[in-house]
């Protein structure tokens, strides 16, 4: 079996669910003839026809609104945002209509909203955003950020089958950069379960998305210095795997919270609160955050490189914490 890329894994996951369940359909800009800006829906129009692969006008809010309406009538829409940045245009529909529907009148809204997020490709302030926290802070939604091809496929399937609205943030830097062999048979990855990517005894690095690789690379370097990092990949942010987080922290007693998203109000804050509330007595050092700084994502290479958390950042903070 050849290795499957992260982006192809998503395509496969959607394709297989569409084969299996005729309620599933895709809508978005340029998803049909063009197969999507990143080719996630390539070939689907030919296979599934124009009412299951719907090219829409440039109307993110109506794309989500229409997905909601179709879901209420029994379909299973997958709405593509050409870049996750443009989800801002649908913020209102997502947070007010979709998120609150079940709570208000017991009508679930099983939609998936997916798109490429994240930096590292010189996309600048409007093609590099990490919008996850806006939705993590909205009860009623689920938020998923896979880091591997396996997870991407397994989680997109779980998202499609989920009875509630799921925001699926793909990391565009990983699209063609990570790949692995995938099982031939149907599999899913549960929403809300983290994965230990590396077991370690000294410090827990809790992270998600592309930063998983930053953490792993740092761990490999630090191993040479005798510092043993554990790397926990959250995979889902809402709900997140509280047990796995606490279990890891209680074992290592030191924790680094790492994300590509900006700092103030980022997910590390939520984690810090949970840890300092529920694992306070286990902590042997301050909780350390490594995040992007509180700025837009800059375009120029030296600026963007400065912006993104780096292996060296993890190494520096880990050394400090190890020595604490």
């Amino acid at each position: 079996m050849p290795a499957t890329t992260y982006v192809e894994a998503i395509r496969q996951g959607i394709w297989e669910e569409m084969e299996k369940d005729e309620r599933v359909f895709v809508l978005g800009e340029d998803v049909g003839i063009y197969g999507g800006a990143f080719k996630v829906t390539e070939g689907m129009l030919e296979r599934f026809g124009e009412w299951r692969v719907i090219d829409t006008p440039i109307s993110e809010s109506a794309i989500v609104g229409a997905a909601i309406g179709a879901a209420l009538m029994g379909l299973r829409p997958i709405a593509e945002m050409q870049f996750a940045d443009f989800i801002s245009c649908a913020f209102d529909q997502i947070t007010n209509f979709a998120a609150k529907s079940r709570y208000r009148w017991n009508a679930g809204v099983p939609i998936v909203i997916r798109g490429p997020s994240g930096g590292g490709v010189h996309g600048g302030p409007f093609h590099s955003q990490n919008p996850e926290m806006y939705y993590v802070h909205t009860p009623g939604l689920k938020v998923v950020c896979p880091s591997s091809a396996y997870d991407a496929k397994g989680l997109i399937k779980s998202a499609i089958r989920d009875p509630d609205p799921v925001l699926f943030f793909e990391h565009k830097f990983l699209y063609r950069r990570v790949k692995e062999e995938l099982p031939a048979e149907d599999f899913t990855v549960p929403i809300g379960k983290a994965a230990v990517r590396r077991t370690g005894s000294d410090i827990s690095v809790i992270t998600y998305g592309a930063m998983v690789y930053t953490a792993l690379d740092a761990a490999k370097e630090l191993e040479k210095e005798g510092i043993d990092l554990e790397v926990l990949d959250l995979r889902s942010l809402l709900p997140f795997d509280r047990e796995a987080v606490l279990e890891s922290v209680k074992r290592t007693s030191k924790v680094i919270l790492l994300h590509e998203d900006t700092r103030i109000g980022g997910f590390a804050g939520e984690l810090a609160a949970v840890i300092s509330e529920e694992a306070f007595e286990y902590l042997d050092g301050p909780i350390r955050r490594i995040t992007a700084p509180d700025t837009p994502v800059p375009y120029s290479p030296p600026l963007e490189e400065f912006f993104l958390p780096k292996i060296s950042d993890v190494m520096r903070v880990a050394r400090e914490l190890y020595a604490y």
Partner: protein
Amino acid sequence: MNVKTISTLSPVSGPINELKVPSEELQLQLLYFMKLTRELEYRIERKLYRQGKVLGGVYVGRGQEAIAAGACIGLRKSDVICPSHRDMAAFLIRGMSLRVILAQYMGRKTGATRGRDANMHMGDLDLNIIPFISMLGDHVPVAAGAGLAFKARGEDNVAVCFFGDGATSRGDWHEGVNMASVLKLPVVYICNNNQYAYSTPLERQMAVENVADRAVAYGMPGEIVDGNDVLAVWDASERAIARARAGQGPTLIECKTFRLTGHSAHDDAAYVPRELMAHWEERDPILRLERALVETGVITKSGIDKVQERVQNEIDEAIQLAENDPYPDPEDCLKDVYFEQ
């Protein structure tokens, strides 16, 4: 634009026009639902709210009852509606019970949203009612999506979506009607143009005379009807619904009307000129229908009194029931944010 307003009822006397009219039975049903709506909203706004039994905001459709009534009476059970905040008749016609509605307004467990949401924000998938959210216009693309589901499955159901003149300024309104037009979705868009959005008059809302003028931008028919003439609303809706069922796409129906009250229960509408209000009070859609039905012999004056009596009794009874319905348990607050087994 050169649009003719369609009217069947004379503004102040009986019928004037030999348009297609619904059966006598349907006419009587319309009368019943409009009177039921009027009385129900009267009780909610002028009694229960003032007695402190309904908390929060209260918005009624006094003077606009013909619109939702005329547009909904001919629908099938399998059609879906997306009402707005002045469309009480829609809920009643779809079969939501008075008790459920009143319990909703009083925040009871038996209300349409079990106390979670307020007033008109009522939905029920069994009745194919998608509830309004406050953000005006948001349900316009949602209605398109419902129509999309029908079309994708090859069903000939329609989605009927209601909104006010002011809501048409929202971006979501534009995106929604545009998408419905491009994909030729089976949606009927019904605007109550009551000439105000809260205190804001129409000319501060749009630079066109008629909301229907906006239909041109979407390549869909825009029709203006006398919104206080329930038979005219019915007629226009029938045609638009038939068009949608036939796969010819959405229609925009503008119903000219007026809000015979403040924007909400706490607003005295001091910004509305007295004469304008008086002009429209004379054109009360219920009085117009009553006069027409009496003149055509469909009902007698005492028959109308009987309807009023029935309506009052039904509401009395429902209020009694709803008032004695329990509030939700406090901990219910935590339930149903997500699917629960």
